């Protein structure tokens, strides 16, 4: 199968305490279409740096990133956002607080496209947004609510919807349920899994949660000190138990 995203010998070096430190230390990774990869690792393992490198928020010290065989290593975040979307851990990072839910969704609908000097025509999209949120009890009938008035769970659900409203080629989830209470976290994770499977999205999900790591996805990667130390396919992952992963922490 042709790879969607290929990371070729990615190295990210920072200068810290009078020495060079490799946050990413020669990462090689190939992501196929419809892969749902769970990335596990301790703090400082390089998980978020890896996502930053993929989105273009951070540039690699060396190595290449190819999307559909096109070298995007030098493309900036704005250009990559056309194909790659991301949901952050902090619910506040993914939405615009002084805009309504509908305004945020409209903003996301034009992800990666040029912003022209023409009226945004919000009303033309309201029916679509109503349809989009109708099965979500947390956001139903809240299209005109300012985002700053929403709870953390509602904001994170909105962030997730914003990431998928315009189908991304690659969806990146950066511990997107970690800042929520257990029940909300579980509900959002179930929604995430359902949407990814239904829409056949390609996804890279970073998590600290061993239960999530075992339960979701068709591939598991463990990062440690900037290196991939474990890479399990669907079959191997299905036999995995949570305690098997403890040795990597």
């Amino acid at each position, binding site marked *: 199968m042709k790879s969607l995203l290929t990371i070729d010998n990615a190295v990210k070096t920072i200068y810290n305490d009078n020495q060079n430190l490799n946050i990413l230390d020669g990462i090689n990774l190939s992501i196929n279409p419809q892969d749902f990869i769970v990335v596990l690792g301790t703090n400082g393992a390089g998980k978020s740096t890896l996502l930053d490198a993929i989105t273009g928020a951070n540039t690699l010290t060396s190595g290449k990133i190819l999307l559909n065989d096109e070298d995007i290593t030098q493309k900036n975040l704005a250009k990559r956002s056309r194909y790659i979307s991301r949901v952050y851990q902090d619910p506040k990072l993914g939405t615009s607080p002084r805009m309504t839910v509908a305004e945020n969704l409209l903003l996301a609908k034009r992800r990666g496209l040029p*912003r022209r*000097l023409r009226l*945004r025509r919000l009303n033309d999209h309201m029916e679509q947004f109503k349809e989009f949120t109708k099965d979500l009890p947390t956001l139903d009938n809240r299209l005109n609510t300012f985002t700053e008035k929403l709870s953390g769970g509602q904001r994170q659900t909105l962030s997730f919807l914003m990431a998928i409203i315009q189908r991304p080629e690659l969806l990146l989830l950066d511990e997107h349920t970690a800042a929520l209470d257990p029940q909300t976290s579980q509900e959002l994770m179930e929604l995430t899994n359902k949407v990814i499977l239904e829409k056949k999205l390609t996804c890279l999900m970073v998590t600290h949660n061993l239960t999530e790591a075992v339960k979701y996805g068709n591939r598991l990667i463990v990062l440690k000190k900037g290196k991939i130390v474990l890479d399990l396919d669907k079959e191997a992952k299905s036999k995995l138990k949570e305690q098997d992963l403890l040795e990597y922490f």
Partner: protein
Amino acid sequence: MNLIISTISQGFIWAIMAIGLYITFRILDFPDMTVEGSFPLGAATAVIMIQHGYSPELALLVAFIFGSLAGFATAFMYTKLHIPSLLAGILTMTALYSVNLRILGKANMSLTKPDNIFNRYGLDKLPVNFNGIILGIIIIAIITFLLIVFLNTEKGQAVIATGDNETMAASMGINTTMMKFIGIMVSNGIVALTGGLIAQQNGFADVNMGIGSIVIGLSAIIIGEVIYPDVPLSIRIITIVIGSIVYRLILMIVLQLGFNTNDLKLISAIILALCLALPTIRAQFFQAFRNGVKSK
């Protein structure tokens, strides 16, 4: 009565500057000190152009453009050279002091030509000080209309998103650097335009007339927000105008109580500090009141 009308007239004209400041201060979340330099820049530009025989309208347009260029300098230092926002504004403001001296050729200049925008279009036939009110309302209406239309475009929404949450805006593919340039330039353009208007109203430009202008603009914004919290943008601009008039009236009352005019800046700063603290004071008062009721 004349004093009150004069105060209201000033409130309307200064409200234009406050609307400009609102773009950086609230929409972009950018504390822009440039305004203390772009305000006299607009005044100096307008006065020198009118003195050289150009029309007051053209003088205001050029003042707007020069103010936008001042904003460009600040935005460039902030976004491209990564100089902190406050410092970038202070640097431009300092540099503009010399620029303004160069434009005027001296520290201040009077408008000796009788032609200015306050006595055109029949405004001079109005009772004293009403020309300022009418002109202020017209310019505010035009700027408000243009601003609301712009902020409802895709680009305008991108500017709001950039000020609201830059991380999100960038991840949506918005060129946040460009949006900051647009916001800071338009803001300083409007501030310089106000400088040009005030110079025409007062009949002179002075390189020091920008000192404290940021306090005046912020006071109008904050008073408007304190009186009318949680309103949509179009209403917010009206509340800024109300805030500007209320601020001027407070100042007038204070001066009428016999305070020394040399203390004007001190009084202005105290009024702004009180307005900024008002939400906290109000919350603590209500908390204490509720606690008192419970204990009874």
